[in-house]
């Protein structure tokens, strides 16, 4: 190749290929995990800061996916007495509790007609993998009523394949109304204190009206019980996402 001057053209190296690491890009978090938000109380914030540092340290080593109550998860833990030294449990997450490093989640499944619930700690070093098999939100934050529901609502296939989903989509809300076993239940789920929307109550109208006797309509106007976490969440979200990017 010759330039317009007549001299040979300077060698231009080909442009460097831009490597888009799709694995890392897909890691964007949509909401802050609830165990980061400190509870209301008189504890020194230094304690929560130190705990958050430890939690972020663990998250850098082991990736904990974000999930809600209602998602179906598969957890592999290290077990010295199992054949492969690892045991896998698949179940629906019915409750997320605890704050800080002691945060737990309870998975429920029905195996061979026996209901099994296992409470795992998110930051337990024995946990080797957490996979989200199905992303699906339910109408409530606490699905403990599945204990008193018909077992078909808690059975999930142990060898379920992860349901493929596109990112950047809203998590679908499953408006399933669960049918219950006959009373007595472990808790009186019809009472307004539990505020459950996901049960199809087949009780007579008199019982439902009687349950409303325990409603406390003044509770929603009790202003001092409200805990506004929006500002705290924003601060912690910025802090955590900055630390995780490093």
């Amino acid at each position, binding site marked *: 190749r010759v330039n317009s001057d007549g001299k040979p053209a300077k060698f231009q190296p080909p442009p460097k290929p831009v490597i888009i690491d799709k694995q890392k890009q897909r890691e964007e978090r949509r909401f802050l995990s609830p165990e980061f938000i400190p509870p209301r*109380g008189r504890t020194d914030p230094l304690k929560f800061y130190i705990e958050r540092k430890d939690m972020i340290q663990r998250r850098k080593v082991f990736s904990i996916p974000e999930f809600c109550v209602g998602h179906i998860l598969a957890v592999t833990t290290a077990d010295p007495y199992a054949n492969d030294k690892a045991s896998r449990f698949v179940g629906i997450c019915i409750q997320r509790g605890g704050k800080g490093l002691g945060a737990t989640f309870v998975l429920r499944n029905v195996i061979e007609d026996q209901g099994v619930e296992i409470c795992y700690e998110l930051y337990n070093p024995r946990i080797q993998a957490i996979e989200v098999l199905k992303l699906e939100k339910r109408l409530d934050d606490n699905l403990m009523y599945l204990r008193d529901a018909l077992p078909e609502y808690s059975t999930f296939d142990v060898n379920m394949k992860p349901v493929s989903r596109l990112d950047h989509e809203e998590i679908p809300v499953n408006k399933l109304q669960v049918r219950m076993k006959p009373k007595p239940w472990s808790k009186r789920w019809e009472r307004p204190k539990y505020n459950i929307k996901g049960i199809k109550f087949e009780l007579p109208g008199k019982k439902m009206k009687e349950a409303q006797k325990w409603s406390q309509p003044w509770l929603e106007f009790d202003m001092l019980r409200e805990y506004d976490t929006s500002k705290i969440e924003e601060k912690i979200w910025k802090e955590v996402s900055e630390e995780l990017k490093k």
Partner: protein
Amino acid sequence: MRLSVAAAISHGRVHRRLGLGPRSRLDLLRNLVTALVRHERIEAPWARADEMRGYAERLIEYAKLGDTNERAMRMADFWLTEKDLIHKLFKVLAPRFQPHPGSYTRLLQIPNRDGLDRAKMAVIELKGNPFPPLIRPRRDTEKTLLNQLLKGYREDMQRAAAS
């Protein structure tokens, strides 16, 4: 699990137990909040005034959100039993406290009640009220040791300068 012992321990419980029950407690405090918004300075037993203070300040914070806000209007509707005060809350008190970020009330103790119960009383007022100011305890009075020493030093200096 011994539930009775758990009920008797009250570690970390922030609400006082007033009146006949939780509903009664909220009704009592509601009446006090209404009176405070109407008169802007009231006398009440100290415990009730202290409980009421938190609710009054949160009510003003809700009022600051504006009366187009559905939640703010429902809160004001519940907490103010006399409905003409809702207008006063949103149109007079909210603009008055707009520049202030925090405390809108002042709680001061007064001598015990004259009746048989000799209850600990307090006066609670909204800041910026039109009444003459209350006698607030000044921490720095002329009678403190440091101030007396400084006064003596000043007088000595004046005497030395005069002579």
